[in-house]
């Protein structure tokens, strides 16, 4: 893609370099415009985690999952994933390191990490970039699909590897 696009454009007599620089300028402005949004969101997430509130929430849900035969180790991932991409990636990496990449836990963790997204980050970045303040129902839909993806990942892995 990196070579195809400029080559194709060149055959269309597009001044490729100038065109690239024009577009690239937008990229810089966009990155700067996102800063306040990301700072605000990441502070809230970081505070929520450091205060122990996230641990408390997890202690609440873990027993219920255990009853279903779901390894409780993967639960924090479901809570972390919508909040922090790097945080959940770190957690997944840790699960893979401790339990092995091919264990049930390792497979579930890999699938969850690969199949859901950092909803709050995506929302912050995308809406922040265009100055949307009222996101309507976007967050509900995003979190709902995270929950569905999380449950689907566990169910499918337990069926396939359990």
């Amino acid at each position, binding site marked *: 893609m990196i070579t195809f696009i400029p080559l194709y454009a060149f055959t269309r007599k597009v001044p490729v370099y100038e065109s690239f620089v024009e*577009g690239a300028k937008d990229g810089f402005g966009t990155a700067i415009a996102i800063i306040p949004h990301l700072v605000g969101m990441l*502070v809230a997430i*970081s505070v929520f985690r450091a205060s122990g509130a996230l641990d408390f929430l997890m202690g609440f849900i873990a027993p219920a999952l255990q009853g279903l035969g779901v390894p409780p180790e993967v639960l924090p991932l479901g809570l972390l994933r919508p909040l922090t991409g790097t945080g959940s990636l770190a957690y997944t990496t840790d699960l*893979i390191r401790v339990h092995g990449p091919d264990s049930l836990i390792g497979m579930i963790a890999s699938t969850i990490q690969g199949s859901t997204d950092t909803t709050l980050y995506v929302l912050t970045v995308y809406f922040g970039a265009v100055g949307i303040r009222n996101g*309507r*129902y976007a967050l509900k839909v995003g979190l709902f699909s995270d*929950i*569905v993806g999380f449950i689907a990942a566990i169910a499918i892995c337990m069926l396939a590897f359990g």
Partner: protein
Amino acid sequence: MINGIWLAMIVIGFIFAAVNGRMDEFTAAVFDGAKSGVTVSFGLISVLVFWMGMMRVAEDAGLLRKIARLLGPVVGFLFPDVPKGHPAIGYILSNMSANLLGLGNAATPMGIKAMQELQTLNPDKETATPAMCTLLALNTASITLIPATLIAIRLNYGSAEPAGIVGTTLAATAVATLAAVAADRLFRRLTLLRRPPKPPVIWPKDSARGGPALPHSSMKG
């Protein structure tokens, strides 16, 4: 809703920190979060600058319009209120394909470009349009064919079958995407129905209500 969640996370965090005697960690977390906000934004500069430049070249060459026309029907179904042949469609498609290939880094700039194009169609610049919500829904669930990062990590830790998660990931994302599209459609219809009697001001009243079902699950968030 985002107002409520943001406030709730900070207030609940503060209360927990006070109860657990973690005020020092609380303060540290504030500056830590702020710092990583800036770091992440700066990390995005290189990717955004490069890909947005690339996308401009593709746009000037007429590539985006071509893709848009080719895959118009699919996007027409998902984004009924975006006019056919609008530049937003090309960006939406590039964003979807980058997600499909698991190229999170390349997907973001294209998603942002798509948002910016959708914003030109938006009558109220501070309120998201249904099309914007659909784009977000697709991005948070995003069907993934090749979870590249995960395969790399698994390889790193000596997996016998690093790509063994491709099938499960594809299946799980397909389910999540279907759910997202369905939920998006449902909410879209609900807001359309609610619109006429209670006109313009849609204040994020959900956050104040704090009912059990959704606000709770979003507390994780």
